[in-house]
């Protein structure tokens, strides 16, 4: 009798994935959901990229060539929204799904059914958002910051779908964040104290708290917009007693922490990778954790630096200037720690390491321009110019996106059991690196010389740098098809990877076989 029960239990414990479309629709497995998030994110990255390339095509030379100004505004808006909410954030949630349970020795996420929901909301949200392109009046055309009153009084009717889409993305993000927090707090392997958690887990824990704190604020601001548009309220309408600047305060109270939501997990990723390929432990683990917390807390105190020109009082201007400058300190600590980790190591330059090194250098350059932007009197000259565009693309492309590439190359052999081609990986890196710098570095010059953001046509003195920038953008964009090829090629063929994959790695995810079995850690591992 007992033997029968045992067999049944065994089958129950060792069943593989379901087959067919049902596997993906109903899955509660963190690895399946992680993969779906990553594929979804890549699809959105391509869509957002096509929009960006259309923008760069229009800006290739002065004059209006291929799009009219109204459509141009739709392109910039949708490019921003899709890259932020469709590409970067889901990619990090995908990495969290794949890695957090494996890193902390848990069998799955804490709330697997909710995990399925939080993913499946996204394709619907983005289908709706993208469908606005084909609606009468076109897609949202007010910038990804959708400042009222432009977005509440002069927007196309599709703005209502945009608001609903944002609500859905917010719901998805909050559910994802709850899941991450519940998993990390409750499901760590015995012996894994907080101060023994891998950096990636730490940064995601902090990111998840940021998400829970600010996504409702975004939901609030779009709801207020909805009320203003359809229900006759005047939150943002000065003529009705409202305040257009209130919109910006509420938006940026969400928006500034949001930029850290898009960078902290990447900090975690490079904090895993640099030690591996330096063959040395991460320098200053404790200060890394505290620096991350400090950045997260400061991120709530600096939102008005996006609004230096709206006419806030001198005292407010000074407060936000000082607070913003202060963020350079913990960020600096992190950069110094990464450099110190490499110092006196034994370094090799595999693709994930190349992306991580580029991350540290280019993110620092983005940090420098960020510091310049923090200086309020100088910001009056930089604000809303291409200098800002250069700045945030330098933190987001080499920061968030290179971080994601590094993570994919680093853990891909663990996920699918095969090694990627190092030659192709390095080619992808170098083409991306050159393309990205060619695209975004000249934008610093454009901004300083006086070119405003979000203009479809420009004065003649900006022509040369725009041309270079467009060529760089096309190089960067098309290079990503190589990345797609590399990933598919690795999944389908490629040399078998060992369990440890990389020499001298640390962490629970390297103790399980490659490819990682469908179910792992049914008995929790002991961490000493």
């Amino acid at each position, binding site marked *: 009798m007992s033997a029968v029960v045992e067999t049944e239990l065994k089958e129950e414990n060792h069943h593989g994935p379901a087959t067919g479309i049902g596997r993906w629709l109903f899955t509660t497995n963190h690895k399946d959901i992680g993969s779906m998030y990553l594929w979804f994110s890549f699809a959105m990255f391509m869509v957002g990229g096509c929009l960006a390339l259309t923008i760069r095509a229009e800006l290739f030379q002065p*004059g209006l060539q291929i799009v009219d100004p109204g*459509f141009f505004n739709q392109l910039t808006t949708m490019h921003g929204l899709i890259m932020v909410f469709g590409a970067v954030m889901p990619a990090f949630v995908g990495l969290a799904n794949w890695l957090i349970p494996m890193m902390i020795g848990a069998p799955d996420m804490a709330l697997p059914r909710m995990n399925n929901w939080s993913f499946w909301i996204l394709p619907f949200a983005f289908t709706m958002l993208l469908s606005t392109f084909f609606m009468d009046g076109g897609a949202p055309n*007010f910038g990804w910051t959708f400042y009222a009153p432009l977005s509440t009084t002069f927007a196309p009717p599709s703005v209502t779908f945009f608001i609903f889409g944002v609500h859905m993305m917010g719901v998805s993000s909050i559910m994802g964040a709850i899941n991450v927090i519940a998993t990390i707090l409750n499901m760590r392997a015995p012996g894994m104290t907080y101060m023994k958690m891998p950096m990636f887990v730490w940064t995601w824990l902090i990111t998840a708290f940021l998400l829970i704190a600010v996504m409702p604020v975004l939901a609030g601001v779009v709801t207020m917009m909805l009320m203003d548009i359809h229900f006759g309220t005047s939150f943002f309408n000065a003529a009705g007693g409202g305040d257009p600047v209130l919109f910006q305060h509420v938006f940026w109270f969400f928006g500034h922490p949001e930029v850290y939501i898009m960078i902290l997990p990447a900090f975690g990723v490079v904090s895993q990778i640099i030690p591996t390929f330096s063959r040395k432990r991460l*320098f200053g683990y404790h200060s890394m954790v505290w620096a991350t917390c400090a950045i997260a807390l400061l991120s709530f105190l600096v939102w008005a630096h996006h609004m230096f020109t709206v006419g806030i009082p*001198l005292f407010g201007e000074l407060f936000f200037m000082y607070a913003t400058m202060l963020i350079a300190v913990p960020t600096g600590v992190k950069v110094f720690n990464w*450099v110190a980790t490499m110092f006196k190591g034994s370094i090799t330059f595999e693709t994930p390491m190349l992306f991580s*090194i580029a991350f540290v250098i280019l993110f620092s350059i983005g940090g420098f321009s960020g510091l310049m932007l923090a200086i309020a009197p100088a910001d009056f000259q930089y604000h809303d110019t291409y200098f800002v565009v250069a700045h945030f693309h330098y933190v987001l492309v080499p920061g968030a996106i290179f971080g994601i590439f590094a993570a994919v190359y680093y853990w891909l052999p663990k996920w699918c059991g095969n090694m990627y081609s190092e030659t192709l990986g390095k080619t992808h890196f170098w083409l991306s690196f050159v393309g990205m710098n060619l695209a975004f570095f000249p934008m610093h*010059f454009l901004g*300083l010389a006086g070119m*405003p953001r979000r203009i479809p046509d420009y004065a003649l003195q900006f022509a040369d740098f725009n041309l270079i920038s467009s060529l760089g953008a096309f190089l960067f964009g098309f290079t990503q098809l190589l990345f797609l090829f590399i990933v598919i090629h690795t999944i389908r063929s490629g040399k078998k990877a060992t369990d440890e994959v990389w020499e001298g790695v640390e962490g629970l995810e390297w103790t399980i076989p490659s490819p990682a079995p469908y179910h792992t850690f049914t008995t929790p591992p002991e961490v000493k």
Partner: protein
Amino acid sequence: MLPLRLAGFHSKKFLRLCVQWFTSAFLLALASTSQAEYEVNMTPGVTDISQSVFSLHMVIFWICVVIGIAVFGVMFWSMFKYRKSQGAKPAQFHESTTVEIIWTLIPIIILVAMAVPATSTLKEMYDTTESDIDIKITGYQWKWQYDYINDDVSFFSNLSTPQDQISNETTKGENYLLEVDEPLVIPINKKIRFLVTANDVIHSWWVPAFAVKKDAIPGFINEAWTKVNEPGIYRGQCAELCGNNHGFMPIVVKAVEEPEYLAWLAEKQAKAKAEALQASQVWSMDDLMAKGEAVYNTNCAACHQQNGMGIPPAFPALKGSPVAIGPSEDHINIVVKGKPGTAMQAFAAQLSDVDLAAVITYERNAWGNNTGDSVSPQDIAKAKGN
């Protein structure tokens, strides 16, 4: 052909452009030495404030460069010296409280050193007291209005770059997209206070040479000031996304010696008086049409297009439209009072009665509308209710 239509995307033009690109990219590579006009830095400007902003910018820039060289220097040196391929053996250290305290404190000191000059510059920028001249700047979609509030002078400033330059049909002028029909004129060496607001959405008034950028927000009045040291023509652009024609909203400021400014002011005042007189005259159809065309091209063509075809659905066509060929009272009403909830503004305060009469007459008779109606300035005054 795909059944889906993306409003505003022109695929044929796109293909033609692809060919153009490769040619021009190639030519650029060939001719890169001849195109020496690469502007890579901010302007030092022509005011004391803009110059201190410029030096602040340069100081921070060089501090960043030095930090960058130091940090990346150590990093590259580590990558060069401690390569595994060179037989480097990893060291075991992974913590040093002393080092971490030092590299927390040094940046704080550097930041304080930056904050001190920044604070004093900022305080100066905020001091708008004791101005000599006050000018109210109002942002509209998509033009600027300048009110000399103590001198009874008020006018609008529109983009003056012809549409055919924008659509690549003629060669682009020297100040392409940075030229206006009526520049703001100010005297040098006087403290000018700007009161910045907007009529519809948020705009931002920015002249780099003065280091002035202030958002124009409906329902708010923001303050900024400048005192220009050198006569000259200074150009800027709207810096806040304000809708369709955000990229076509330039700012031109002409800074002149005081006598020249006073002469200009007197001329402006005289012209305003003459225009007020014109409103009581009787206007011939031909005169109305000629004036109307000019007014239309400056104020209406950006949305409704020079050929009256508009950009539906946002900007309806006027050619053959029910408004333009229906009863003239309705037409006058919509131009004078605008249409709430759309981009159609109320032009009552923006244009004189003569201009309004002329432009409405033009719209009712151009592009084959041929209603034969002629609208007089008196009709406009009646519609305004004064």
